[in-house]
């Protein structure tokens, strides 16, 4: 048997303890790395709009519940906003990706046939120029034509404010098109809206990707449609602004609007801040995970350093003897490095099992995603390098033990 293995057998308890520590660290770090990767991936989902060119504002009348400006008032607001320096274009929308407010409806493949309904489709609606203002690119079809626009507000259909039926044209995302007609060309096809599925809507365009106002289990990430509307009740103003002017526009916007009508409250926000705000929880979680992972690795490294130093000290005489009978410095260095590799590998073997078990348990308890086995490799690489780095100092010290020690009594 290899001398390293037989030497380890003399320190069973200590070896088991170190391997156990490595195993626990491995199980936790692998899952933490996976969670970090998962969150970072979620945060990097693109919205499908020009994130860095937008400023948006919500106005509220003084009488909540029966407020809102209509028709000409909105046109005056839009004109004033368009006149602000740095503003390229302006439109009104019911909501924006990641702004959290949304309305969703059922889309019916066949009129009045409940079984053909696709539930929880998010409705975007906007005034002329919305696509251009948001910077939405169509992958097929066309933008809305002037005759497509009707007064319509999602969620208010049938109310006194919005008696007209929904628009007859819609732009859908690729995801919605695939849900409605898998594998088919959606352009020109008709689906039906309304709680009974009675209002026909024709698909005139398709967007590759447009994120929902909120990513949920039911609505998914980007299953939505855009509808043309001449005016919206309770909508938001969206401004496409030169990126360097965003701060100034957001600051001056409330003044511009209250000059037209002082009896209202205006809240303007840079859209990039809206996105950052949406992901705040994820970012905080990533930081917590990073800090804990860092502390955990530092602690494990210190433990390995402490133990290796102890062993080097304990074996000084043996090292001297080995050197005296011909072992090179490099042999001694390799000995301790290989010993560490062996212990860490044992720890990783047990830890990987633990990591998979922990992931399965977390999946059941917190609905986390399933961890692909490739992540185990990442944990293993981290711990191998950690072990080698930690052992390097004590191993170098061991390699410098002069052969003459062999002749001395301790």
């Amino acid at each position, binding site marked *: 048997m290899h001398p390293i293995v037989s030497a380890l057998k003399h320190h069973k*308890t*200590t070896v088991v*303890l*170190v391997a*156990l*520590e490595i195993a*626990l*660290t491995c199980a*936790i770090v692998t899952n*933490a790395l996976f969670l970090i990767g998962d969150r970072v991936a979620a945060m990097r989902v693109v919205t499908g709009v020009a994130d860095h060119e937008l400023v948006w504002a919500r106005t*509220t009348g*003084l*009488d*909540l*519940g*029966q407020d809102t400006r209509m028709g000409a008032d909105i046109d005056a607001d839009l004109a004033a906003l368009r006149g602000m320096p740095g503003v390229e274009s302006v439109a009104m929308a019911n909501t924006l990706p990641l702004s959290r407010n949304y309305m969703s409806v059922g889309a019916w493949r066949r009129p009045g046939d409940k079984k053909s309904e696709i539930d929880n489709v998010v409705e975007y609606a906007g005034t002329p120029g919305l696509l251009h203002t948001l910077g939405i690119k169509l992958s097929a079809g066309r933008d809305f034509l002037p005759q497509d626009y009707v007064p319509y507000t999602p969620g208010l259909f*049938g*109310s*006194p404010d919005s008696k007209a039926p929904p628009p007859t044209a819609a732009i859908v995302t690729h995801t919605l098109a695939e849900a409605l007609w898998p594998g088919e060309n959606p352009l020109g096809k008709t689906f039906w809206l309304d*709680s009974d599925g009675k209002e026909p809507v024709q698909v005139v365009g398709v967007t590759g990707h447009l994120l929902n106002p909120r990513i949920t289990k039911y609505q998914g990430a980007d299953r939505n449609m855009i509808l043309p509307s001449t005016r919206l009740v309770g909508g938001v103003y969206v401004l496409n602004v030169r990126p360097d002017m965003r701060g100034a526009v957001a600051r001056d916007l409330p003044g511009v609007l*209250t000059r037209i009508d*002082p*009896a209202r*409250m205006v809240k303007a926000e840079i859209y990039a801040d809206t996105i950052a705000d949406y992901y*705040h*929880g994820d970012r*905080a*979680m990533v930081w*917590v*995970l990073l800090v*804990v992972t860092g*502390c*955990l690795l530092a*602690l*494990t490294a*210190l*433990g390995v350093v*402490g*133990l290796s130093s*102890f062993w080097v000290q304990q074996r000084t005489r043996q090292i001297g003897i080995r050197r005296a009978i011909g072992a090179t410095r490099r042999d001694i260095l390799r000995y301790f490095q290989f010993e560490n590799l062996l212990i860490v590998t044992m720890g990783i073997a047990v830890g990987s099992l633990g990591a998979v078990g922990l992931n399965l348990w*977390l999946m059941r308890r*917190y*609905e986390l995603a399933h961890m692909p086995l490739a992540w185990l490799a990442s944990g293993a690489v981290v711990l191998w390098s950690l072990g080698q780095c930690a052992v390097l100092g004590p191993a170098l010290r061991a390699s410098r033990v002069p052969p003459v020690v062999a002749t001395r009594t301790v």
Partner: protein
Amino acid sequence: MFGYYLDLAWRSLGRNKVLTTLMVLAIALGIGASMTMITVLHVMTADPIPGRSGQLFYPQVDPQGMEGYSKASDPPDQLTWLDAMSLLHARKGVRQAAMSAGRVTVVPPQGATHAFIADARYATADFFPMFDVPFADGGGWAASDDDKHARVAVIARELADKLYGTPHAVGQLLRLGKYDFRVVGVLDDWNPAPHFYDLSMGSYAKPEQVFLPFETAMELKQGTQGSMMCWGDFPTDGDMTKANGCAWVQFWVQLDTPARVASYRDFLAGYSEQQKALGRFARPPNVRLRDVMQWLDYNHVVPGSVQLQTLLALGFLLVCLVNTVAMLLVKFLRRGGELSVRRAMGASKRAVFAQLLVEAALVGLAGGAVGLLLAAFGLWVVRQQPVEYAAFAHMDGAMLAATFVLAVCAALLAALFPAWRACRIVPARLLKTQ
């Protein structure tokens, strides 16, 4: 004897400062991280209304259609306006109140240009006495005010200070949108956490600034907010009191004795039967009656991320412990010679064991002290986060004591095995080799 052990431990720890520092640091890190998260969890799972949480109940009935019905399905989380009013007027509890979250525009005395939106609660009269709400001035309104749709309001102290410069604002006029209300009470500081009476606004939402009689607010069409579940037609004119297919009202009832709880449950079942006979309900009686803590539990008020972080912190503590076990083992075994001399001179195994544990306890205490500082820092970091529970992340006396107990216990636990190993040394063998 204890003093002697303490002296020995102190000398031993001082002999190898690096190893001692490492052990203290390991325990401190583990304790700091886990105490931060345990404190957050402790605050988040606290009883929001101690002393009365067992007497306050949240009734649920099921007015939905048969579509999607199964025996196990839960009734909606809230009540329809009609059901809430029926339960309210039945007056089967000691006290009962219906309520909903709302939003109002506060127009301050300086004029409309300074108007701002405030969170409001529309509730019925029993809200204040039932939840034991403290008043700085005045009091709640009477049930008769609910019936005659009186234009009265209760406001929070913060708002009173902001609008009138004094908490003694009873009798002042409060302008909300285009309506005037008379202030009848000013709340003292009141911030139940979790925000148990309405979880739909966020489990740790701040208390509202304006309280209005429910029926007055509905008559004046003040905006409601919070979650709403609809299965039938939505009212086309925005009058929520006609929304018979939407559940959006919270209802609480105070029941003092188990007998009253049982009879209230029967009452809910009877009410459901009666409504079914009238054709309003379609499902067989499907009622729930949970008290405050059961209601919080049912709604999983503690966010998954907080639980996950607590688990992570505990896992971290575990690794710290294993690390400490390894280091103590090294330390104790290295002192085989010294221990053998003590044993040879007559110290019993037990005495040596006790001596080693005292040493470990000393490490634990030091770790606890440093860990406490780390936990205080950790809680400070949590408070800087823009999460709604941030403001509650403070350590109290109980958690302070728990930190030290946990640290010492952890260190002792970690020392048990190494100390036992060190005691097993046969003195003669080690003495001979020296």
